[in-house]
């Protein structure tokens, strides 16, 4: 199924596929286990302190080491968009650079298809970067002295293909991201949004199954940013890549994420289904994040409905489980006493009380 830009928010895609059932999990592609990264002269010694419970500010104060990442455990599932969110300095870039080992960890494991890439040698790692993982950067990082086509074909060129061999593939992906006809231009002749399209085409042309995107849209104007998010969702519906997407913007995170990981001071504070985090924040830090969100537009019927076979007759009508609350409220014309039957693909799966909607619209406070 495809998405229209204003309703496409946080939901598992490919509903037609067998694993589309919400409870069935897709296989894990990359698994991060007990990952630590400490910047400084003697990270091993500092690691002991961190394992004993020392936090980021104390470590900086007492040991003059920066705690980059602390005991990270994340499963990145095949075909999903995993969004890592956090304020600037929370360790997002550090984390994503561990996945292709641009940064060496202090301790931990990174399992790619079950194999710890920390044991890999340089040659294996190069193969991984050339064939399995591609990257899109915040500041685009295109080669300024190469044309758009040559940039898009960077991975293929690096692998040793000649221009005649890669040109068609690169042009195809440039067309796909909406840059048909720009192939002979140089990056500086394009606008920011178009440059990032080249960045995406470059990642796609490598034909890797994993795409790492470090704040890929953060440098773009809001409107262009929305376009790019839609482009990514559209491509994702078609290609089913495993995407790791970094952002500091909750709206973007909620729009894109299948799985949301929230980082603070180098540690994961909460991770899970974005709707679930929105309704059940477990930390004041996350409450601050979600406070300004338009919840009616972000939350879906399925997140607030009562599951189980609908009983009784007094339904005001049917709503699809993937509709957002805003549209249900509009349909109810503000009435508080209505009840709806929730359907998925036309089959009833639960009931929705307008009261439940009202409750969900008020952010829940963490006790204490």
């Amino acid at each position, binding site marked *: 199924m495809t998405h229209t830009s204003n309703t496409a928010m946080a939901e598992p895609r490919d509903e037609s596929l067998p694993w589309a059932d919400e409870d069935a999990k897709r296989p894990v592609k990359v698994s991060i286990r007990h990952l630590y990264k400490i910047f400084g002269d003697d990270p091993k010694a500092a690691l002991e302190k961190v394992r004993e419970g020392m936090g980021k500010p104390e470590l900086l104060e007492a040991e003059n080491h920066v705690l980059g990442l602390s005991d990270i455990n994340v499963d990145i599932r095949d075909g999903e968009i995993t969004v890592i969110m956090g304020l600037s300095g929370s360790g997002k870039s550090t984390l994503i650079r561990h996945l*292709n080992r*641009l940064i060496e960890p202090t301790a931990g494991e990174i399992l790619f298809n079950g194999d710890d890439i920390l044991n890999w040698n340089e040659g294996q*790692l*190069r*193969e*991984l*970067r*050339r*064939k399995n*993982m*591609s*990257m899109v*950067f915040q*500041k*685009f*990082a*295109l*080669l*300024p*002295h190469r044309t758009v086509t040559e940039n898009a074909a*960077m*991975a293929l060129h*690096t*692998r040793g293909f000649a221009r005649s061999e890669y040109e068609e593939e690169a042009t195809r992906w440039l067309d796909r991201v909406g840059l048909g006809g720009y192939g002979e231009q*140089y*990056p*500086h002749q394009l606008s920011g949004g178009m440059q990032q399209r080249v960045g995406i085409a*470059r990642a796609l042309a*490598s034909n890797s199954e994993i795409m*790492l995107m470090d704040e890929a849209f953060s440098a773009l104007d809001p409107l262009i940013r929305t376009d790019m998010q839609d482009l990514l969702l559209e491509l994702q519906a078609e290609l089913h890549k495993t995407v790791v997407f970094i952002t500091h913007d909750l709206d973007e995170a909620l729009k894109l994420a299948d799985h949301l990981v929230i980082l603070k001071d180098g540690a994961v504070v909460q991770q899970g289904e974005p709707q679930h985090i929105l309704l059940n924040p477990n930390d004041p830090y996350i409450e601050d994040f979600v406070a300004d969100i338009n919840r009616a537009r972000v939350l879906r019927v399925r997140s607030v409905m009562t599951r189980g076979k609908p009983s009784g007759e007094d339904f005001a009508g049917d709503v699809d489980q993937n509709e957002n609350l805003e549209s249900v409220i509009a349909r109810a014309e503000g009435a508080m006493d209505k009840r709806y039957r929730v359907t998925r693909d036309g089959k009833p799966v639960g009931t929705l009380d307008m009261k439940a909607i009202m409750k969900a619209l008020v952010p829940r406070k963490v006790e204490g």
Partner: protein
Amino acid sequence: MATYDGLFDALGLRAWCDQGADSGPMSMADLLAKTKGDKAAEISAWDLPFPSLDALHKACSAIPQSRDLTQGLETGFLGIRDALRVVIDPLSQPLSWMLQDMLWLMTQTPWWIVMPVLFAITWFVTRSWKIVGFIAVMLGLLAFVDHYHEAMQTLAIIFVCAFVCVLLGVPIGIAMSRNDKLQRFVIPILDMLQTLPPFVYLIPLIFLFSVTEPKLYGIAIILYAIVPVVRLTDLGIRLVDKDVIEAADAFGMTNRQKLFGVQIPLALPNIMAGVNQTIMMSLAMVVIASLVSAPGLGVLVLRGIRNLELGVGLVAGFGIVVLAIALDRVTKASLARIDASQASR
């Protein structure tokens, strides 16, 4: 009596001082001083000499004179000279051959071949007919006042020396950019080469090689002119956008692919700026090097100074200015061409 006699007496060193007394030959100044008699004792505080080697020697003959120092250096240098030559001679011999061949090529080939070739090179690096026309006028002017031969000699030397500078300097710069330790080691050497007046390092070179060998002035010019291309290559590669380097790593480029595909192309504007400066400094040095038998326009300038032939000196000087402008224009234009193709940064 010398001024510092009292000092040595007080320190009880008198016996040590007089051991080797009167062994060295006397200088003229000493003899003059002798004939004036022992008035030194009456020296007032106002005239107190600095306790230099010579002053102390007067009081204590065991202390060497300054001229012993210079002489010692000279014999020391002559002592290691042969050993040095064994190493440096074969290494630098190709430079002599290159200089000789290039001089022969550019002066013996008829002007109606050399000049079009130079114009073609100019066109090739600048792609600008305006500059080619400018060079044609400048060279024509020099040839018209019969300085063609000398100008070609000067150009030949500059071409060879700048070529060697780039050949050595760019790899050194690249190595420096990749290794902080090497950079810390090389930068003081570059600083020294740049601050030393060129006359100063002509001196050991003259001892090392005979004045008839072209490599003598070749080495002097290269030492002087290599500094900017090394510095700017190092700087240029270090200044390449970190994000772009990271992207190269993230897409699995090898170090080689990164160096030749990303770092050098992106550092090229800086490297070319270094080449421009290197060429200009070669020109400056080739004039000074005429003191040690470098042929060309510098010889005429030198003749103008030595023989007070004002006209000869002025015309040759004008020729050097013309060459300087021409070389600068050409290298700047090719630099601008490279910059234009990378205007994004």
